[in-house]
């Protein structure tokens, strides 16, 4: 059991605990380009069976005024995709295959929003949103081969850097706030 726990690691880009916070202010404008935020993290895996990264999310919106016939921002308004998988560290085993799960292999910040409305069609259509992670906890978003011989977080060259992009198009949503709590887990095997 201790060996299995040690076989993978997920950290921030300083090799510390991954606990990222990003924020959006949803002020509508004339642009049809979503506002994007990115989070990068490092994954390590020394298990011969490889790894997979799973994601789960919860979503809460707190209106500050009545919806009054309009829409309140929803989890499906926030696109999520993996926009970079950097395997260039010297101890990363190559050749290798890392696979972004279908629906997450896109940049939600680069999707054009015709007519100023949310442009994401959902994971099944190749454009995942936070709603897909809320509805299917433990969704695998990335998997691949063993990364390096060691998973030690103090090793400077044994990790893959993954960048996840979140994006949304500011609109005339009901005034208020919203919070997404997303958990990423790395585990053995494909």
């Amino acid at each position, binding site marked *: 059991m*201790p060996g299995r726990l040690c076989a993978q690691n997920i950290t921030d880009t300083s090799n510390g*605990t991954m606990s990222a*916070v*990003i924020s959006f202010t949803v002020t509508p404008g004339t642009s049809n380009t979503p506002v994007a935020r990115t989070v990068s993290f490092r994954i390590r895996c020394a298990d011969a069976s490889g790894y997979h990264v799973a994601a789960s999310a919860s979503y809460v919106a707190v209106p500050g005024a009545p919806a*009054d*016939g*309009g829409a309140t921002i929803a989890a499906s308004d926030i696109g999520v995709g993996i926009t970079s998988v950097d395997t260039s560290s010297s101890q990363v085993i190559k050749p290798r295959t890392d696979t972004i799960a279908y629906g997450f292999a896109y940049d939600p910040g680069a999707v054009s929003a015709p007519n*100023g409305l949310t442009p994401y069609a959902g994971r099944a259509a190749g454009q995942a949103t936070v709603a897909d992670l809320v509805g299917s906890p433990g969704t695998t978003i990335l998997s691949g081969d063993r990364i390096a011989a060691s998973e030690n977080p103090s090793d400077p060259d044994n990790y893959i850097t993954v960048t996840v992009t979140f994006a949304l198009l500011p609109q*005339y949503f009901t005034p208020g706030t919203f919070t997404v709590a997303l*958990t990423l887990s790395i585990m053995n095997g494909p």
Partner: protein
Amino acid sequence: MKTGKLFLFGALVLMFAGAAQAQTSGTITITGTDPEAFSITNTSDATLSATIILGTLTPATGGTLTSGTAQIRLRSNKAYQLTAQATALSFTGAGAADGGASIALSDFGFGIASIDASGANVANATGHTVVSLFNYDPRSVSVTNGLTPFVPSTHGTLDDITTSTQILSGPRISAQGNISTDNNFILVTLAVATLPQYFTPNSSFSTTVTLTIASQ
């Protein structure tokens, strides 16, 4: 016996040391704020800066009013009010009044001629209420005896908005979408009309009406 206890202790230490190194999960917290949002634009969704040119007001027979309109798009994510304020008339080349009347703000009827709330992403198609004084089309007022037809307290004029004055209010306008969305606004047509008369001559006159949308 003593040796066995030591071995067990050592094994526990190794197990916990191994578990402490593992960090197999991480969190990302996304927070966001949807602020109250209101906008006024022209019909191209750009900054509103319309000019109504009434031209040369030459008196004639009959009761034909000279008029103009401006269309604006309003958007909001909550209940709103629209206010208007006109500056004093500014003249260039004004002649002597010589006992006669000069054109005044009260000679310009001002009203909301129509509101179109038919867009698919309009949150509330009804409930947009024009303040009664401005709830008319000044272009359709009948002229009697060739004089200004606008009746104080019945027909709103620019003289009624010399201070910031509410002219319209209503519920949330936009269900969603942004300022480029083509169906999440109400289209308001503002009309101005005046009757050309033997007012004191001038080269030109102008006034600026400032419209402001805000939360109720």
